[in-house]
């Protein structure tokens, strides 16, 4: 039955070459932990992707309860964590997952750096990777405010103050992020928009470019 459905679609759209290209590509021995245990360092990139999938999924589900409004944000987080079944786990996935994503990105960056994998011809993919790193830090910064608890508010105030010290355009950056002259209702709404729509869109675009380039260039050879 499944085979027939597949054949029906394949006859019309010729989808076989699309996935066979991915499925059949050869994975060299030096990145395979089954042959060299030290090759586990090559897993960090894949694990980063895995944690990002966890972040996107758990984040999507969190917005079913979360309200980006200063009067309700904290209460909605308190409710989803303490009253909703498995709330602790889903929020925990997003909270701890954020930290682990940062750790994995950091380790992956170090692996690429120390194996010299960013050298010609892979310079462009390194650039995209570093931009991904910055986007992920941005996601961490904007996500920290959303529960609207004490540490969220005051850490964000300090963070925005740092942005303000930027020469010439600091005031604008701060005001643009803050949306108001205080960290308040408009800041929370803005951070929510940035955290949930703008940065993830950027993240997905950059990730697509990252993976396409890896597929195009293959994995760098052994040292």
């Amino acid at each position, binding site marked *: 039955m499944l085979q027939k459905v597949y054949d029906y679609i394949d006859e019309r759209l010729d989808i076989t070459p699309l996935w066979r290209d991915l499925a059949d590509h050869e994975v060299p021995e030096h990145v395979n932990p089954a042959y060299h245990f030290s090759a586990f360092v090559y897993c960090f990139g894949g694990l980063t992707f895995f944690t990002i999938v966890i972040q996107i999924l758990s984040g999507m589900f969190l917005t079913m309860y979360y309200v980006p409004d*200063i009067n309700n944000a904290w209460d909605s987080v308190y409710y989803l964590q303490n009253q909703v079944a498995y709330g602790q786990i889903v929020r925990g996935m997003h909270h701890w997952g954020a930290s682990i994503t940062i750790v994995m990105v950091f380790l992956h960056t170090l692996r690429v750096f120390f194996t010299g994998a960013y050298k010609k011809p892979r310079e462009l993919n390194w650039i995209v990777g570093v931009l991904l790193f910055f986007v992920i830090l941005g996601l961490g910064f904007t996500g920290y405010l959303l529960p609207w608890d004490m540490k969220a508010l*005051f850490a964000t*105030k*300090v963070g925005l*103050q*740092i942005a303000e010290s930027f020469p010439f355009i600091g005031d*604008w950056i701060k*005001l*643009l992020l*803050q*949306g*108001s*002259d*205080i960290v*308040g*209702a*408009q800041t929370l709404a803005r951070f929510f928009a940035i955290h949930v729509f703008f940065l993830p869109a950027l993240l997905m675009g950059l990730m697509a470019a990252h993976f396409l380039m890896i597929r195009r260039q293959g994995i760098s050879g052994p040292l």
Partner: protein
Amino acid sequence: MSNKEHDVTRRQFLNYTLMGVGGFMAAGLLTPMVRFAIDPLLREEKGGKMVDVMAVKDITTEPQRKTFSIDKVDGWHKFKEQKIAYIFKKDNGEIMALSPVCTHLGCTVSWNDDPAHPNQFHCPCHGGRYTKDGINIPGTPPPAPLSVYEMKVKDGRLYLGAEKPRGGA
């Protein structure tokens, strides 16, 4: 028809037109959205009213922490913003009202809470310190003195207004 005078080919012309129309569509879509996003940058600031805080006769030479609230509009959110002021009389009898917002990174300083440095304002974040007059002590992180509130005295009451930064020193 010579190609030297008309060296734009049909294909080039169509490509330029394509870019032009594409640019128009991008601009048409983005202009309202960008203006929408940067609205906070272009808003005029409204001056606040002065608020009655305390009786002048109660002001001592020791800084007193006073909270007062001003009406604040943050977009759709209207509320009373709580402000804190440290109010005292200087040695020459002049009244001073300091804002406890640290000029380093915006934490809140408190008066005389650090046993190692009595009679100073002290910031818990990065250890910034200020003298009683709110002057930042050299060698600590803050780059400028504490802001002072605009004030006026009317009928024996002290009224406070907006914070005025005092610039780097």
